[in-house]
């Protein structure tokens, strides 16, 4: 138990490294010729990466039988939201400098912005209901609500895929990881009895969080 506290602290620190790197490079004036683009891409990439890691927690827990892993999930999810918030703020403040007329048009007219914005908005209720109190209060509905994270993941990958000019290699890689993570859940859903037991090596599963 005590060891796991250290794992949580380490994971917390690890999630802050990209942010620290961004601040450090910003402070050094080392964000390249187009710093706004650099910040946008950097925060966007880390949103996706941490989101995928978050989505990996439950499958990993079931496969490994290491139930304590679930204690990392909320923190990871909130970090994904943190980077999404940075990404979104960069777009509003640095890229368009509060030009809300243009921003509104962009969101409505540009599919990659629409889908990215949708993903961000869907994360908000998840972040708000991430407290222990909300989990208790919402009970079963909490889990239903938090299945929205699957849509967030899909929106995030599509957002990336639609914005690249021709080189789809990187969004395709994110998409492949997402497909595995969601595919696992789909298989589990379709084969409710046999597969999870096989994959979980008989570990006892606790369906509530933490």
């Amino acid at each position, binding site marked *: 138990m005590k060891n796991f506290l250290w794992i949580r602290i380490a994971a917390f620190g690890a999630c*802050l*490294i990209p942010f*620290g*790197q*961004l*601040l*450090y*490079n*910003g*402070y*050094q*004036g*080392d*964000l*390249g*010729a*187009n*710093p*706004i*683009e*650099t910040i946008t891409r950097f925060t966007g990439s880390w949103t996706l990466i941490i989101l995928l890691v978050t989505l990996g927690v439950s499958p990993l827990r079931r496969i490994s039988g290491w139930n304590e892993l679930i204690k990392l999930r909320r923190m990871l999810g909130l970090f994904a939201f943190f980077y999404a918030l940075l990404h979104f703020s960069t777009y509003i403040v*640095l890229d*368009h*400098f509060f030009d809300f007329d*243009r921003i509104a*048009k*962009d969101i409505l*007219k*540009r*599919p*990659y912005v629409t889908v990215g914005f949708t993903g961000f908005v869907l994360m908000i209720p998840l972040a708000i209901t991430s407290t222990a109190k909300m989990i208790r209060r919402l009970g079963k509905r909490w889990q239903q609500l938090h299945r929205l994270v699957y849509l967030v993941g899909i929106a995030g990958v599509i957002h990336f895929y*639609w*914005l690249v*000019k*021709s*080189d*789809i*290699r990187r969004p*395709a*890689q994110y998409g492949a990881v997402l497909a595995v993570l969601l595919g696992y859940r789909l298989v589990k859903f379709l084969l409710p009895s046999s597969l999870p037991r096989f994959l979980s090596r008989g570990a006892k599963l606790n369906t509530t969080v933490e």
Partner: protein
Amino acid sequence: MLIKKPNDIKSSEITPRGLYMSRRQFIRAASATAISAGAMLNGLDATFNVGEAGAGEKLGNLKKSTYSTSEKLNSLKDITSYNNFYELGVDKGDPAQNAKYLTTRPWTVAVEGEVKKPKTYDIDAIMKLAPLEERIYRLRCVEAWSMVIPWIGFPLSALINQVEPTGNAKFIQFVTLYDPKRMPGQQKSLFGNALDWPYVEGLRMDEAMHPLAILSVGLYGEVLPSQNGAPVRLAVPWKYGFKSIKSIVKVRFVEKQPATAWSLQTPNEYGFYSNVNPEVDHPRWSQATERRIGDFLRRKTLMFNGYGEQVASLYKGMDLKKLY
């Protein structure tokens, strides 16, 4: 063809680092407010490193040109570290990193097709084909950013006139080097290619003959760095940047409109003409504004990238919304 000359450039205006530095300060101030975990971050700066440009050989005796803009130049560092040159990698910093692979000697440019005097030029002959001029042009990328770059080169028309096109020559196709060893971005990868290689581009004959269209062999008073398309590239300032093909090995005069790399890749997004046009959006993003590298706020994009007085007559009667 009526060609209006823009203002003379004052050499005293050339202060490349002005805006660039003020932006640095803005970002520094923004991040300094939050930086408290500084100590643990030492040594984490590797991600953003950009390769240094290979110091080019100096090019002397440059003529000034009345086609040059007097706008503030972008710094040599910006121009040589922020590049779209997929043959050297798809990220903006990749071409500078991979520039070392692109050796430019020996190099020949084959000029062929509908011409009376086809010829394969050695690159050193190209460099001496016409008096070198400095041309300070705006460059507007299709990705909605722009720069001001002091190219060195000569009018493309000088080459065209030497080889004497036949009456059948209606278009010119340009071809970039194909050599995966020297251009690592052309190496086959598991997830496919960014574009079909070699890169090809084209101009209509009257566009190619326009005095604004140049073959560039240098910038900032020096031989062109590899990441900017060495040893010879086009600079066609009223069109999106991808029209200005880099590292040219072939110039072919043809009768029919030639294929171009980006319109082969995504025909509904990139047309043959690709003139800078704030009213015709890219299907996925707006072209109404752009960010000048070094500026914080976006600026309005100008029709033909601000060269309308010189080039609009080329497109009289054409529906530029259809022929984008």
